[in-house]
Each structure stands twice: as structure tokens, then as C-alpha cells.
């Protein structure tokens, strides 16, 4: 799907032009260790819960970001980061999406999904944002394939146990 002129004028795109640091959100980078994540987030957010090696942190006083979800790979390094906007804050600017020309759009009004994938040093990354034409609700960045490391390990186990 091509970006429409209407979408191009969205406020959410204001922050994603030009230079960017594509693999970090709120000071959390892909591949960071869990200890490093705790040190960074502990200064600005409260740990809320963990589930299946994913952690939810709620920001104490950020007027625009409600929370951040960090998923870890089995080696306890960051495999994805998702920030979630406050409904009444400023619209998110999802910087990992990068240059607007590269952003793919899917979905319909009220449920757009903006995606950009790229390769660096033989690794593939995916940035994803969700929202309307006026406001993004979430912004994520992950290593492509990192989300399925558990599954690949599970597949090995599945076939292993059958022998």
C-alpha cells in the first residue's frame, strides 16, 4: 500500500525524518542486557510485571509515554522494545521508522500499521507503529526473527523428544 497524501501530513511523522537512532527507544537498545535495562528504566519508570521474559515498566512522570514493554531473548538480551503513548499526551514520534519514503502502511482508518524493515551488519530489524492518521498509540523496534528464537528452540525440542 502506498502512503497517501493525507497520511504524509500526519503529525506523527514529524519526528521520524532525518537522522535517527533506529534501534533504541527511551534509552533502551536492542541487545542490551537485562541488568542494563533495569538500570536505565529504574531511573524513570516503575517495574510493573513480567511475563514470559517480557517486562512492563510504567513511566513515573513522562507526560507523553505511558509505559514501555521490553522483551528479552533466552540470553536475557533485549529482543524488542515497545513504547505505549498516553492517550492525552503529545503524539508519538516513532523515530525507528526512519525515512518516510521507506515506511509501509497497512490497515484502514483507525487501525493503521506503519512498518519499516532494514538490514545492518547482516541483521534485519523491524520498526512498527500503530495508530490513526492523527496519533500513534505505540511504537516498537525488534530484531527480525528475534521474536521466534524461543519458538525455534521449542521446535528443536519437539523433534528431539519424539526420538
Amino acid at each position: 500500500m502506498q502512503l497517501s497524501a493525507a497520511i504524509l501530513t500526519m503529525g506523527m511523522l514529524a519526528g521520524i525524518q532525518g537522522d535517527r537512532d533506529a534501534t533504541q527507544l527511551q534509552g533502551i537498545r536492542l541487545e542490551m542486557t537485562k541488568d542494563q535495562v533495569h538500570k536505565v528504566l529504574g531511573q524513570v519508570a516503575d517495574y510493573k510485571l513480567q511475563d514470559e521474559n517480557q517486562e512492563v515498566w510504567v513511566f513515573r512522570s513522562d507526560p507523553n509515554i505511558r509505559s514501555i514493554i521490553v522483551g528479552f531473548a533466552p540470553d536475557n538480551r533485549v529482543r524488542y522494545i515497545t513504547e505505549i503513548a498516553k492517550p492525552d499526551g503529545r503524539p508519538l514520534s516513532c523515530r525507528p521508522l526512519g525515512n518516510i519514503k521507506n515506511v509501509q502502511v497497512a490497515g484502514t482508518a483507525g487501525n493503521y500499521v506503519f512498518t519499516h524493515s532494514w538490514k545492518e551488519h547482516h541483521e534485519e530489524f523491524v520498526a512498527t507503529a500503530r495508530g490513526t492518521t492523527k496519533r500513534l498509540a505505540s511504537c516498537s523496534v525488534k530484531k527480525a526473527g528475534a521474536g521466534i528464537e524461543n519458538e525455534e528452540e521449542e521446535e528443536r525440542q519437539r523433534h528431539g523428544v519424539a526420538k
Partner: protein
Amino acid sequence: MMFQREGVSHGLAVVALSLFFPLAGFAATPASGSIQATSTAPITWSGSPVGTNNGESTCVDGTTCDVFTLTIAGSPNDYINKFVNVSVSWAVAVDEYDLYIHQGSITGPVIASSTVGTPGTSNAASVSPNVTGTGVYVMHIVASSATAASSYQGSAVVGTSPANPPQATFRAPSYQNLKPPTGVGENSGEPSIGANWNTGSIMSTAVLDTLQLTLDTSTSPATPTWTVRDNTITSTTSLDPILYTDHVTGRTFVSQLAGTTSLMAYTDNDGITWNPTQGGGIASGVDHQTVGGGPFRECTALQAQLNPEPCAILTARGPITNNPLGVYPNAVYYASQDIGLAQMALSQDGGITFEVAHPMYTLEQCGGLHGHVKVGADGTVFVPNKSCSGSQGLVVSQDNGLTFTVQAVTGSTPGSSDPSVGVGAKGRVYFGYTDGSGHPKIEVSDDNGVSWHYNQDVGVPFGIQNSAFPEVVAGDNDRAAFFFLGTPQSGPATGDDTTGIFSGVWHGYIATTINGGKNWKTVDASPNDPVQLGVVCTFGTTCPAGTRNLLDFNDITTDKYGRVYAVYTDGCVSADCITTGNSSTAPHTKAQNDGATKQTVIRQATGTSLFSRYDSTPLKP
């Protein structure tokens, strides 16, 4: 939520239609009454709504359903060991009036209900004011099947024991365990099952294999035949297999995760030929997907009159009528989660293509992994979750997967297995789960998860201390079956065996209700043949080798006669393992277990089915 829940729409209906008709025309005669803890005489009323309603959601007050407002006077302490028993009765057994008791108003939660089904001449339910409080309760009497010549009598009376819903004759079920021949279904962790009501085939998938089970019922017991029905699309990789059969159309879907996408194929001839589909509806990365479906939710005439906007949304999200492959009558849903977000995508063309998924919940609200999607007869969509803010949760959509509400399953605690939902013919929700202590429990809701009742521990008859893989299917509104693995041994039965080696014997149990979840009959469905010895690890990929052979779930379904079929992975198949499991003195740890992954189907042989219309023709083995 775009839509308000059913009770709210009813309330709106009352308000809107009262502009045109006298309000008294919407109520029973008399319209209200009051009762005290010391009352000895019953409060009575009558009515004659006419029509055929499949639950509350489609009825129109004053025409096809009635309202009677009962004020329970006094304080809750006046009702210690006392109940207000409500009943409706009628003369002709082919008629039926369903009873729903709302607290506070017609928009309030349903705290009790009775929808026994025909044939019968009464429905009854109870209020416990000492627990739920005194004040206003609204009796909603819905004409499930009533003609102009029909009428009912209502009654409310204080008693010292709760009313028991009338029960049909209950024949305790018995079960057969059917195993595929050697070499078939050997690598079958986390199997799923579906029934094609048109052909009678039972379809199942686990890891890479899809199997068709047919039964020759000219013999007794029936003779099973197993046929491998693999397809090239979903048998080449496996990161999470799932099968769903639309029993109405007979279409079976098989889905497998594959890297950052999902592979899916469907068959309309029980696996003889397969067709590829788009696969999912989630753009980048997926995990633990589920596929399910059922009727589209449709707009009623009353809703259209009150608020056409949501009706337009439902219409837009209905079946695609200009599909060159033909109109597929039912919705198909694909749900999964990634990057901290659980999502669901609707297919309006029979699973061939899917929309871009809509968010269901974030990790802030519920744990990431969820159970399998189920759809009620009115099109309400349900996804269960084992942990949502301190309890089990039920994710509900009433606009064909556009928006979602997370309902807490009150009275539950988070567990280690994915819970499961069964939806009765008139919308009663049965939520089966393993609670925080490991016990197998099931709750009931008559208002799509807003309120819950009858929280039952169905493992009590066998002293079950630990359970795993709860699976539920419902038939008639008051009938459901709950399959789970259980062991009477306490201890860390679903852990990783690092803090202590668990020793216990697991069997497959099926609990059945025919009175809406008030009472359950639990049966050991795999007697004398353990499913597993030792731990059933539910810690995912961190589980040590040899503890996770069963993977994450089992499944259950029903054929068109209400005969229950469940599928499980058998981890204990050798003669030595079975003998050891049946010994009361032998150790029962993972060291004695086979660690096998043999698919096994439990088939209900005898007993009451999930559909009362077959009560006069008992199931045969």
C-alpha cells in the same frame, strides 16, 4: 468498546420503545413485587411473551421477553442461610421460557440464570442476598420457544436451600481411548481437534501431522480408521500447530507459525485437497497463534432503530457478498501476539484473506500468551487468558473483532495453563481453568464475562491437586464438557523439576454438566492408562529435557450428536510405564515416564450427550 453489552442495549430498548408504547406493556403482570426474609408466601406474576429467542441478545422486551422487578427487602444479614428462589413454569413441554436474574436493573450483571431447554416445563434459579446483597433484582423472562397460546407463571419465595434447576436424566458418560496405529501420530505435542458435522470426520493436528479419524458405527464399539491428511503448506515446518474446523461448513484450517509470518491452509473435503490462504493478518512477527470462528455478529432491527452507526460497522465487517469463490457464511479469526501486543484479524471470505489485525490487549493488561478463540452463536468473540491483572481473564469482542474488552474472571487466580472457553447455544460462557493452586475449576457467565457464578472445583471427586491443559466445549446452553489432565498428587507438578522431583500419575478427566454449570459429573477418561508420570512442565522453553513432551495444550470438541471428542498427547505408552503408573507403591517421576508424544483421541462412548434433542436416542459405543 463500540457496542454496549447486551444488558445495556436492552435498557436502551426499554427507554426507546417506551416513547411509543406504555411501559406497562413491557412487563409481566404485575410488573413488580417485594419480598422479605420473613416472607412465607411466594410472590407471583405471569406473562405471555411470544417468539423464538436464542438468548437475551435478540429478544424485545414486551414482545418476546418480559421484565419483573423484585425488591428484596431488609439487610443482607437477614438472609444468612436463606435464598430467594425464583422459578418460571409453563404447561406445554415443547415451550420454553428462559430465566435471567439481573442485579440492580436490566442493565446490571446476570447473577443467575436457568435455560434448561426443551422438553421441560420450568426453569429455576436462586439469589443469595447474604452474598450479593439486598435491593432490586430484575427477572428477565425470555421466550425461547413460545407461541401465542403459551404463557408462564413466575414465582419468588424465600427458602433455606437454593433452587435446583430441573435436570434431565443424567447418564454418566463413559469414554474410549483411540490411538492411531504405530507410526502415525507419534510426534504429537499440543494437539487440536475439530469435528465436521457434515461428514462425521474428526480432524486433528499436532506438530506436522494432520489426521482424519472416521468411525464405522455399524459395529459396536465403532471401528476407527485413521488417515494421514498432511498438506505441503503446513507440514514442512512447525512452530505452533493449530487446527480449527468450522462444523457448519465443514471447512478445516491448519495453521503453523513460520518465522515472521504464518502458514495456513484449508480443506473442504477433510484433507483430501488443501488450499493455501494468506495465513494470518499480523504484519511482523507472531507467536502462539490461534484460529477460530463462527457466526458473524449481526445487527438486530432494534439496534438499527436505536443506533445505526454500530450496525453499519457490523454490516461492513460481515461476510463478503461479492466473493468470486462464493459467500462464506461465517467469520474466521486469527489471533496472536508480538512485541507486547496481542492482536486479532478477521477474515470475511472464509479464511482466504485476513484484514490487518486489531489490538486486543497489551502486556500491561494481560499476560502475552492466550488460549484459543471461540465464537458464540450471536457472534460474540472470546479469547481466554490465564493472567489479567491478578485473575484469569476473558477478552471479548462484540463487533466482529474490531474492539475488545478484557473481563476479569472474578473468583479465579492466575494459573499456569492457558484457560479455555465453551459457549452454550444461547450464549452461556463456560470458563475452564487451572487456578493458582493447580486445581481444575470452571466458572459460568451469562453476560459475556461481566459477572460470573458457579465457580466449581471439578477435581474434588478424585482428589485432584494439580491439573493442566483445561479444555471446554459446550452444546445446549446448559450442557458442557471440561477436559483436563489431573493428578491427585500435590507438589510442583507443573514446574521444571529443579526445586524437587515431582512424583505423580496423570490421567485425563472429563467433567460434564447438564444444568448450566451448577453441578458437574467428573469421570476418569483414561482409567488404568496414565497419560504422564512425573512433571508436566508448563514453563515453556526453559523446561528441562523430558519434562515438556506434552507442550502447551490439548483440545476438545463435539460432533453433531453432542458426543464429546477430546485429543491429548500420551506421554506414557509402553507396557512398563503403564504398569508402573498403575502401581501404588512405585515411584512416578519423569525417570519412569516414556516422554512419548503419541496422539490419542478420547471418544465418548455412552452417556448423556451435549444436546438434549438426542436424549431419547442414547449414544452407543
